[in-house]
């Protein structure tokens, strides 16, 4: 047996023994997702057990170095772990912007002290992070941000406002873009980290069309941020910001993938429409729409695998995350349009128990943000056209 075969069989055995059965059931609501952090209250003992066991092995972040709380796995081993987890439909033990966004940026741009301090806490799910990027007047034109950071010797004094800060009211720390030089647009931005409990930080949830408030307005009023919390050089934060955005787009593109454990679109359609005597969905046009959607969804599954493999091998075009983000989010919006069509009037119920509090219609509306957050679809198409296809300006 090759080393990888050995790793696979050992991983399979470990997962079989250590992944609690409850953690192999499909995620039904936000409660089932483990985000970690100071305010984290496990929704079940199994959720806590699963997080602790995976964190102890470094497998919440399997490909990070062991020194920073990771598993130290190679790309091939990481892929095997993912495959083996998928095979038993194991839930992700820990979801976090620390893992998917800040972590990669710190690994590339952070000091050794920053890595040791922050990465280990991210890996164990101790600190939940939020992202301070967009501002009321800096959306697609992100580099036009105005939140100021005044040099006060050993610290910056931060004043301004962020918007669309996901889960700012639940987060412990923020990674934030601030302006340290007003004379240069991209060249006047710095990337800083600070505690959301700092004096002068306040958050206000924004009520969305889904009836939920996953995003906040975040206000900074004379917030003191020690300079040791700046990542990379002063006025070079845009480099960190773009690198992180690439990882954010990767994460969002994952929404285009079918969830592990059943296919809610197909199951939902069978439940409402029923199967005919020939075993086919009784509504032939809905069936055709779903089947053609599934072609793209499955092909995108292969694309995601290819993208990760190419990324790990350094073969992916640096702007390829824009393609993944564009395709994955448009796909996810399409999936929910079909789920609404398949659900009919059942899928319109907004807060009944039978609809689990309107889970489908609220998710349907939530997906509309997928092609806006992290850079709109139009911005991604601009990036693909210019950086990959090299079309003229």
């Amino acid at each position: 047996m090759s080393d990888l075969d050995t790793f696979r069989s050992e991983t399979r055995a470990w997962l079989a023994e250590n992944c609690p059965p409850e953690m192999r059931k499909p995620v039904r609501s936000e409660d089932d997702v483990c985000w970690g952090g100071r305010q984290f209250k496990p929704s079940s003992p199994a959720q806590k057990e699963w997080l602790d066991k995976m964190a102890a092995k470094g497998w919440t972040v399997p490909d990070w170095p062991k020194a920073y709380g990771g598993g130290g796995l190679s790309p091939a081993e990481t892929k095997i772990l993912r495959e083996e987890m998928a095979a038993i439909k194991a839930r992700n033990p820990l979801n976090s912007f620390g893992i998917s966004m800040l972590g990669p940026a710190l690994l590339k741009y952070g000091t050794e002290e920053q890595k040791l301090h922050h990465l280990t806490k991210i890996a164990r799910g101790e600190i939940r992070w939020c992202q301070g990027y967009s501002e009321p007047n800096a959306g697609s034109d992100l580099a036009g941000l105005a939140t100021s950071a005044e040099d006060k010797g050993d610290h910056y004094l931060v004043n301004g406002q962020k918007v669309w800060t996901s889960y700012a009211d639940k987060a412990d720390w923020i990674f934030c873009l601030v302006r340290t030089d007003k004379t240069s647009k991209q060249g006047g931005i710095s990337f800083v980290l600070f505690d959301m409990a700092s004096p002068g930080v306040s958050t206000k949830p924004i009520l969305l069309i889904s009836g939920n408030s996953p995003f906040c307005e975040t206000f900074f009023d004379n917030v003191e941020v020690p300079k040791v919390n700046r990542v990379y050089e002063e006025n070079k934060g845009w480099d960190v910001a773009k690198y992180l955005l690439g990882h954010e787009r990767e994460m969002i593109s994952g929404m285009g993938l079918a969830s592990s454990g059943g296919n809610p679109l197909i199951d939902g359609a069978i439940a409402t429409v029923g199967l005919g005597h020939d075993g086919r969905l009784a509504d032939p046009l809905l069936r055709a729409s779903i089947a053609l959607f599934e072609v793209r969804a499955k092909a995108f599954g292969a694309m995601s695998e290819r993208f990760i493999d190419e990324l790990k091998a350094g073969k992916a075009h640096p702007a390829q995350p824009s393609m993944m983000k564009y395709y994955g989010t448009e796909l996810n919006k399409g999936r929910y349009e079909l789920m609404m069509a398949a659900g009919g009037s059942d899928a319109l119920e907004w807060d009944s128990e039978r609809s689990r509090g309107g889970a489908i219609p609220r998710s349907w509306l939530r997906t509309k943000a997928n092609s806006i957050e992290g850079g709109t679809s139009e911005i991604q198409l601009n990036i693909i056209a210019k950086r990959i296809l090299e079309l003229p300006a």
Partner: protein
Amino acid sequence: MPLYLDDDQTVLQDTIRDFVAEHAPVSHMRALRDADDATGFSRDLWKQFAEMGFTGILIGEDQGGLGLGHVEAGVVLEEIGRNLSPSPFLSTAVAAVEALKGTGQAERWFPGIIAGETVAALAIDEGAKHRDTVAMTAERSGNGFKLTGAKRFVTHGHTADLIIVAARTGGSANDTDGITLFAVPKDAAGLSANAERLADSSLAARLEFEGVEVDADAVIGEVDAGRTPLDRLLRAGRTGASAELLGVGSGAMDMTIGYMKERKQFGTLIGSFQALQHRAAHLYSEMEVARAAVLKAQQLLDQGSDRADEAVSVAKAMTALATTLSVQEGVQMHGGIGMTDEYDIGFYMKRARVLAEMFGDANFHADRLAVAAGY
């Protein structure tokens, strides 16, 4: 196994890319078309394929082939697609070889295929649309069988040395059992072939079998169990057609993006217009996803995975969708010149339509996936 070409496969791709671009560029196809060529491809070029070893790409080294897999065969087909090169590679070196592999027929036909002397055609389709049903009959007769019925959309059927025929030795049209696959030599009595010129100027035959008698040893595999070699043939053919479609779509896209960088209107390059940039970027995304789907199907076939069948249908449907978009955007973005016979982009549109139909179109494969998923 990572989902990208490994180093050996990349080297092979470079070799094949240069070879096909040099010996069979689009102008080669245009010349055959202009000459009203009756064969449908160049026998000389097929000999050159043999000299490069490509004809035996899927045949084991112990039988004189290269012993490579569907990923490598796909690398060849992508270049055939990109250059619109008329070639019996897909029907012969890919689909027929897979059908014959491991059967008693392999020994008889492989040497000729490897040598570039034998061309195979696939007599599968019976209606205008590809179906997973076989109605044509093969009755027992003396020491063998008597084949009666009609087949169509048989590429190279009028000129092939070997025709692989799916016929029914038992059961009814929709049954899985009762199909037998036959290797019929071209000179069989009672077999007539009418070659029809298709939209892309390739030739496909309508075959009539009027009591064509074949010996029992013409059977590929087992009598009544032809579904097994037929499925091998179809999986390989569909995957190969996907790879060729990928080449057609990529070739058309490259041509279109190249044109956007040179064509000026309103005093500026049309590629600077955001309305066109966004469409080009969307097209690129569709082609990238299609490329991933094709490689996934090829790798799973090479691994003998039980998930290969699904991946093959995804690949065939996805490449048909993406390449159809590519050729439509291609003609539209070229404007008036895209409508002229003199310019090559129209050839891409015509070839894409033929390949999209071959071995089942996007709807056929989407339906197949739905049935497999239980809806």
